[in-house]
């Protein structure tokens, strides 16, 4: 049999004009940043859990344990993957001119390409995660080449979304809405947490989701946070909390909601009103030029106003929101983070935390910063849901 690793992918580019314009926009942004920072190229590295930068440069859903995309200051972009089946899609999508197979830990094809281009100073996206084997191969194979981190450069480039990206995210939002509907639809006393996840996953895959990040918690006021699902059986009176984040077209789109099993208790309803007020307060301050800190303060001030400020600390919560785009957890919305939010930035506002009122509560929506404020992506109602609604349908 022939060794298929020598096979040139049988694929050709089919880049549409809108896609070509988006690619050109990204290349312009990145090359301007390269020029500012004295870089000859950007090399985006993607371990399997941090593929956002490779996706940004290739618009391709890859599966390799390790993938790279190389964008020189001049010349075409190329890609590299440890998985053979990534090569044809990478070329067919049309964002890179060539895609080659690399092996862990050698990366010979990548080293050869960089050597051929005569690059001297390379900014590496996720240099901090580059495996020792690759790091050694690159440094030894390219003596004299300086590797510096380009993680921040790429984060900043991705922060402002184009209309092309926002359109993809609106498509993803429809999947998030459907995911939440599926969540409520399957919920009933007697099923397990992982049954709920199965129902949601099946529905979003049917709608074309590539992946999903999802946490869940069920119970009453003893719940302290969300985790992967357990065998716990859903009980009447529970509140079931979830953070759903389907990925469609490369973009993650998060929604946070809670649903009661049966009618909500007075405490569950009061808890919801608090979280709704906090999320609304965060939304109200968003406009170009405000900082992540200011959004977090607006949310936390609501808790402080109600005498619950201590529950905004890291003992009880993580962040008051975070960027969501090609990665699902970017620059956080947290007190003390003075990142300026520009028009086109997309993030979720979620004041999720524990309080003694009804335990951990989850509520929030993803927004895009507009010229004058912000807009929500999803159309799911911003209220406390109840499983009783399902039986009434």
């Amino acid at each position, binding site marked *: 049999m022939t060794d298929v690793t020598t096979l040139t992918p049988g694929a050709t580019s089919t880049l549409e004009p809108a896609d070509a314009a988006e690619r050109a926009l990204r290349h312009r942004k990145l090359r301007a940043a390269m020029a500012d920072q004295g870089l000859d190229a950007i090399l985006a590295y993607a371990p399997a859990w941090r593929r956002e930068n490779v996706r940004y440069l290739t618009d391709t859903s890859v599966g390799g*344990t390790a993938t790279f995309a190389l964008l020189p200051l001049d010349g075409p972009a190329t890609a590299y993957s440890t998985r053979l089946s990534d090569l*044809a899609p990478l070329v067919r999508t049309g964002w890179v001119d060539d895609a080659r197979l690399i092996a*862990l830990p050698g990366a010979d094809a990548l080293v050869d390409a960089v050597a051929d281009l005569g690059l001297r100073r390379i900014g590496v996206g996720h240099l901090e995660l580059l495996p020792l*084997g690759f790091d050694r191969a690159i440094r030894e194979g390219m003596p004299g080449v300086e590797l510096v981190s380009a993680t921040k450069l790429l984060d900043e480039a991705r922060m402002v979304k184009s209309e092309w990206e926002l359109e993809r995210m609106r498509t993803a939002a429809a999947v998030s809405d459907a995911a939440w509907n599926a969540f409520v639809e399957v919920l009933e006393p007697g099923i397990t947490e992982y049954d709920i996840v199965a129902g949601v996953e*099946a529905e979003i895959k*049917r709608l074309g989701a590539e992946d999903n990040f999802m946490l869940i918690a069920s119970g009453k006021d003893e719940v*302290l946070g969300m985790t*992967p699902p357990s065998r716990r059986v859903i009980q009447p009176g529970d509140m079931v909390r979830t953070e759903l984040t389907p990925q469609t077209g490369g973009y993650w789109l998060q929604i946070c909601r809670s649903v009661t099993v049966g009618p909500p208790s007075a405490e569950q309803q009061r808890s919801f009103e608090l979280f709704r007020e906090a999320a609304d307060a965060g939304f109200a301050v968003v406009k170009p030029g405000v900082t992540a800190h200011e959004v977090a303060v607006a949310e936390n001030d609501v808790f402080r106003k109600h005498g619950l400020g201590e529950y905004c600390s890291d003992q009880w919560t993580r962040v008051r929101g975070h960027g969501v785009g090609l990665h699902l957890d970017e620059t956080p919305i947290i007190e003390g983070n003075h990142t300026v939010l520009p028009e086109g930035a997309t993030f979720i506002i979620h004041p999720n935390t524990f309080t003694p009122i009804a335990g951990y509560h989850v509520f929030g929506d993803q927004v895009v910063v507009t010229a004058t404020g912000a807009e929500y992506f999803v159309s799911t109602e911003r209220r406390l849901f109840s499983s009783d609604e399902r039986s009434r349908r």
Partner: protein
Amino acid sequence: MKRGLVVLDHDEVSVDEWSGRIAALQADLRAQGVDLALIYNDVSRGDDIGYLTNLVIYWNEGVLAVPAEGEATLLTKLSKRVFPWMQRTSNLSDIRSGRAFGALVSAHVADRPAGTIGFVDAELWPAGVVREIEAAVPEWRTKLLGPLVRDRRALPSEAELSLLRTGAGILRDALAAATADGLGARDRIAAIEDIARRGGFADLLFRMADDDGHVTFEAAGQYRNGWLLIARTFGDEPWLPALADAQRAALGAVRPGVEWSAVEASAASALDALPPGSVSTLRWISQADFATGGELQPAPETGPAEGEVIAVVLEVVDPRGIRSVLTDTVLVARDGVEPLTI
């Protein structure tokens, strides 16, 4: 991202087996003169820590510190709020949280005499994290170790085999539903998601390609800490059944330690039915490398050992450049294979 059932059940894997896994690693460490092993995993590659503790890194990264003698400790960037869940679903009692692994390791070894730290599966560690830890504990020597845990994972225990058989049964049911006539490509994946996750799968990784109705999907499913691989292609091409014939012939030739070229030869005649210009490859992947698609230990020339669980992957690229794949997971027994996903 992990979002299926995570559970620690001592009726499935005994307390003694869990402690035996740590003890075996500790014996390796003592033999290599290592006082403290560090194992780095992340959400996409978490099986070493899962094998030793049952902990699932559902997000982010983690480092397991295993001393040559004594209790293992998890060093994590996740919040203390999830420690109760981590302790409920793992054998860990000592979990420490912080923002940087260098500082966490430094604090962890503060009351120990300086010795040798070993980085397990060092080639896969982020180089920056290795340097950060080395800088944080300058009085300690460091040693780059091979895949000590991954090697042990390659040969499942009886308890693990039992779980793999259970998982395979669920996956077979899911496959039967997914391969029903008339389903669209997405419906097939939805069927697998629904049945496998309701059956208790912790993770499912899918790849799907749809070339004008020629649909190939590849899935890696995690049931407890074990993985199963499957791939199927659907299409109208008259030569597609040749893949099943070739797979049958190949599986019939698999024996412990067989030269892989002999397995390839046994499948060759069936593949004569492929259109001229097609390129085919037949390889096997160790279960220890399923989550990473066989990319950590590419294409061994010698066959697997008795008792290994492997995937046999038959891949064809036809003259149009379109892939077809048939993959199944089997247990390698003394006299042949026990099909798990067929």
